[in-house]
């Protein structure tokens, strides 16, 4: 599903050169739910941005769904983002003056679906996250947990094969965070591959597999389901 090989990402300014990812290797198989953890500045978000084609990288190879996306142009990357990837962000990133229906509609508009198809997908997505009765509400009229559910509905509406979540529970209290995580698990059980970046060890532990990133490299992997004792497997790319 996702295969990164020797990815290198360097941020340059006039004075400073920051190696965000260096010899980064990771493979995520279809249907997996992978939690990516690591200290601040370790490169988790950079990895997620590259995985979601939001950023380019300097070296290496990235295969997404059997397509080498290393050298795609901007339009091709946009199309893949739209068709294959769903995003969930810590701060929800809903458009404040669009109601829930229109927020979920955003990615579908760029997909070229007709109005009836879009309506059906939006209603199904909002129903899936339990907000079918609030389609005309504005984001500001919802709680944080509900807003994140809208973001999840938006990510799911286009039926992506791959869901990327960057600290999806970072702005939520424990109860709401657990509820969102359960929703993600349910989505994963229905076949969607999920990669979630999180600081929260207890949430990460509920994913099928954990990836630990340090200094821009994958340093450890835990397969939670197969290895209850959390024995680390060092990856040698």
């Amino acid at each position, binding site marked *: 599903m996702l295969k990164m090989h020797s990815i290198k990402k360097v941020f340059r300014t006039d004075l400073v050169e920051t190696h965000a990812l260096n010899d980064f290797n990771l493979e995520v198989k279809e249907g997996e739910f992978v939690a990516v953890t690591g200290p601040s500045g370790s490169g988790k978000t950079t990895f997620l941005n590259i995985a979601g084609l939001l950023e380019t990288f300097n070296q290496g190879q990235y295969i997404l769904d059997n397509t080498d996306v290393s050298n795609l142009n901007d339009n091709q990357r946009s199309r893949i*983002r739209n068709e294959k990837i769903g995003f969930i962000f810590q701060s929800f990133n809903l458009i404040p003056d669009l109601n829930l229906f229109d927020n979920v509609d955003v990615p579908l508009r760029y997909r070229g679906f007709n109005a009836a198809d879009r309506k059906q997908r939006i209603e199904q997505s909002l129903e899936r996250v339990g907000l079918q009765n609030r389609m005309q509400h504005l984001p500001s009229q919802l709680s944080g947990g509900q807003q994140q559910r809208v973001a999840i509905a938006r990510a799911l509406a286009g039926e992506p094969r791959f869901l990327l979540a960057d600290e999806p529970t970072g702005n939520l209290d424990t109860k709401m965070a657990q509820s969102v995580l359960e929703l993600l698990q349910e989505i994963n059980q229905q076949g969607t591959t999920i990669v979630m970046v999180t600081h929260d060890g207890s949430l990460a532990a509920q994913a099928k597999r954990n990836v630990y990133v340090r200094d821009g490299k994958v340093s450890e992997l835990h397969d939670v389901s197969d290895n209850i004792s959390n024995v680390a497997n060092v990856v040698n790319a």
Partner: protein
Amino acid sequence: MFSYYLRLALLSIKRNPILSGLMITAIALGIGASMTTITINYLMSANPIPEKSQQLFYVQVDSWNPYEAFDEPNEPPNQITWTESQNFMRDATAFRQTAIASSNAVIEPQDQDSKPFMSSIRLAYSDFFSMFNVPFLYGNGWQAAEDNDRALVVVLSRKTNDTLFGGENSVGRTVRIAAKDFKVIGVLDNWEPIPKFYDLTTDEFGSPEDIFMPFTLKEALELNNGGNTNCWKSPEGEGFKSFLLSECVNYQMWVELRSEQEKQDYLNYLHNYVAEQKTMGRFAREQNNRLSDVMQWLKINEVVADDAQIMLWLSLMFLLVCLLNTIGLLLAKFSGKTAEISLRRAVGASKSDLFYQHLVETACIGIAGGIAGLGLALIGLQGIKALYGEFADKVTSLDMNLVIIAIILALVSSIGAGLYPTWRICKIEPASQLKDQ
């Protein structure tokens, strides 16, 4: 997607009413000022007879002072003498031709309760009406025979007919002008050529005359000279006849020529005519004969005043300043949308999608600014009308063409102003703003 972008544009405008309002106001001020001056220039320089302006030619020959040009550097007089008017009409070598002149006389209404009033007269030959496509409400113009017979016939303007006959069909009725009874043979429909191209010597934006009568009556009735009379030497002798035969210029000559060949033939005729006159001791200056079509004649006479053109350029500069302000405001407005742009990019919008979306938004602002600008232009034109009075009446009204020009100008201006901010916002990397929200 256009309707979607339109909805987003309206939402965005609503979201930032103050910024949006400022942009609309800036564009409206620029468009208002520009359209005020464009309107004046447009109407001043409009082709008053587009269907045949290239076939109608104003005739000039240089009968002026041998030692001094009529106008520097070597311009022939802008009118002709009585002698030329008679000779040109006698020779009648063009397809159609008319000498014309303005005069005035007192009309005595038949109604005893109405007072006599002074009316303006256009003296013309019978071809005048067909040459200038003059519309008739009742009757027709006179024929060449009536020119020759110096018939006391008259064509009334619609306004004069309204005054004298309450708007009824007055053909066949009698009007007393300059103490003579004239038979009405025609009444004009509304006819307001802008500018009044057939006589630019005075009041080029004035209305056509109250009454039209055969040119040949000038001599018979000793009608006085209207408009400008210019002389380079005094008449030889006393009296009306001597004045007519003097070298004073007070008459205009128009010919209708249907082809380049006819034009060349007429120029040859003028050349031969002047050569013949030289043998009789007239036309001491070099041959300097001119045929100017309608638009050339308007240009030669600088119908569009210099200060109107200067005002036009100044107003366009003002529009530019307003657009520069709009660019700044758009940059400020769009900088508040970076999170939304990043989100849209993340979920699959291409740069061109966002470019199109934001151009629609700037176009909406432009149209709103254009409509408001039209309102300001109307106010500006009313102001000019109030300032200049009747003179400006005809050049201070917006027609459909000008409304379309205003909207197009506003659209082009706003889209032009929006290009840079839109291009800049489309360069936002999708990842840059998503984490910080």
